[in-house]
């Protein structure tokens, strides 16, 4: 039983440590998310403005761009990161293939288009980062809730239960011991009383002469049975 109590306490300490580590990571991610979102706002604004600039110089190239879409150039790989036993997905972007819009705007607005491509590439990179941060945030949140629930359960339910059981057992044992002790004492008393009672009776009958002492062979001087002296 005591071993069980010990086991429960160790478990609770470990889980608390895990919960603390997760919370620490959680706060870090939260800070980074706030920073990235602010940066995102700036970058998107910049990118939208460069789109306006490019449209001013190059005319309307949106249809050309939409028509020539075939494969994605920026792709994402998912990697796993481990924090105190919780796996978090991390997205990493990589470029594949050549720029199929290299020659768009060759006659007009090429410079602005290049700037536009750069701005939006930056925006996409930020978006990918933000996506991995947010998934980690959600996963971590779940994990922290579960861990805290377990910690609380152990602390407020399991350990008191074990402790109560332990206390009960000890109390029972003590009580039984006391019972035993008391019984022994009582028996001794009863025996003593009985003994005194029989002795008094014997005394009484001896005085009444009903009961003689049986002949004491050793104490007799004369032996009746001897014929010759």
């Amino acid at each position: 039983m005591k071993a069980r109590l010990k086991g429960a306490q160790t478990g609770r300490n470990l889980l608390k440590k895990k919960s603390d580590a997760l919370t620490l990571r959680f706060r870090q991610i939260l800070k980074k998310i706030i920073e990235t979102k602010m940066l995102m706002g700036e970058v998107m604004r910049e990118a939208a403005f460069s789109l306006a600039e490019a449209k001013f110089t190059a005319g309307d190239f949106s249809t050309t761009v939409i028509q020539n879409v075939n494969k994605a150039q920026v792709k994402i790989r998912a990697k796993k990161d481990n924090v105190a036993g919780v796996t978090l997905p991390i997205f990493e972007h990589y470029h594949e293939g050549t720029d199929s819009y290299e020659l768009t705007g060759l006659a007009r607005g090429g410079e602005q288009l290049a700037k536009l491509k750069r701005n939006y590439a930056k925006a996409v990179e930020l978006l990918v980062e933000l996506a991995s941060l947010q998934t980690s945030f959600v996963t971590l949140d779940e994990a922290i809730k579960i861990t805290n629930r377990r910690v609380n359960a152990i602390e407020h339910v399991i350990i008191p239960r074990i402790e109560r059981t332990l206390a009960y057992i000890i109390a029972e044992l003590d009580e039984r011991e006391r019972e035993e002790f008391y019984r022994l004492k009582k028996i001794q008393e009863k025996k003593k009383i009985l003994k005194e009672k029989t002795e008094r009776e014997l005394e009484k009958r001896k005085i009444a002469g009903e009961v003689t002492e049986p002949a004491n062979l050793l104490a007799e001087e004369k032996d009746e049975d001897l014929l010759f002296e």
Partner: protein
Amino acid sequence: MLGSAELSFNVDHGYLEGLVRGCKAGLLTQQDYLNLVQCETLEDLKVHLQTTDYGNFLADQTNPLTVSKIDMEMRKKLCGEFEYFRNHSLEPLSTFFTYMTCGYMIDNVVLLLSGALQKKSVRDLLGRCHPLGRFSEMEAVNIAETPSDLFHAVLVETPLAPFFQDCMSENTLDELNIEVLRNKLYKSYLEAFHNFCKDHGDVTAEVMCPILEFEADRRAFIITLNSFGTELSRDAREALYPTCGRLGPEGLRLLAQAEDFEQMKRVADHYEVYKPLLEAVGDGSAGKSLEDVFYEQEVKMNVLAFSRQFHCGVFYAYTKLREQEMRNVVWIAECISQRHRTKINSYIPIL
């Protein structure tokens, strides 16, 4: 002889010239631009535009007002005016108008081609074509399977046929990059237009040829600038330069050899017209870009076209100025709607 122009031009084209000059007087002035720049929202912009020649063109637009709606309405207005001029024109002015629309037709054809190559639905593409570049065979584009089919079935009928024939001499249409094709077509178009104006003679030639030469050289410079660092080889680049400009074969050959901006500038130093233009280009985002400088020069030349009478160039100049005005208004509207007013004054002032 100058005399013949004054005598014969007004017979056929006098009404239209008068009309276009009246429309030109309705272009936004500097004062209008100053008012527009000070608007806080797009609704203010709409109110200011109502006092100009645009009138209530945005009146039946539902909320919310977006920049693309403004753009669409302005383009509709321009197309309406253009079609009116075109329908009332006689030869040789109608051929001139046809030449003017060829530029937009090239853009539309390239768009439909790339759509057909990708087996996309032609319906939506038709909606996105430039309205000034409409030609009657546009709906028939989707019956063609490959670009060569497209050419033989559809495009032979259009005015673009001779331009395609120039491009098709070496490669088939299938292998060509869509952008290279577009630029090649534009090159043949410019040269054909230039020849037409020269043959027409008189004041038209005197006014239009410098404008078209400037356009050709401008394209050469911009193509060079934008092809630094791309996969376009020097020979491919040289094949895209229109030859009807002032740069001539010598300048174009030098340009094809240029590898960066400095070398380009040195080529331009040989021609006193382009030297100050390229020197006015600032660095990075603070100064003007090459495109801005060229736009200003184009606007100047177009405005000068109105100082002569009895030629077809006024129509070309008017269309170009209107387009520039559209771009300016859209730029100002975008700056207002995105609340990014730092560069709101970098539109190209016209008058």
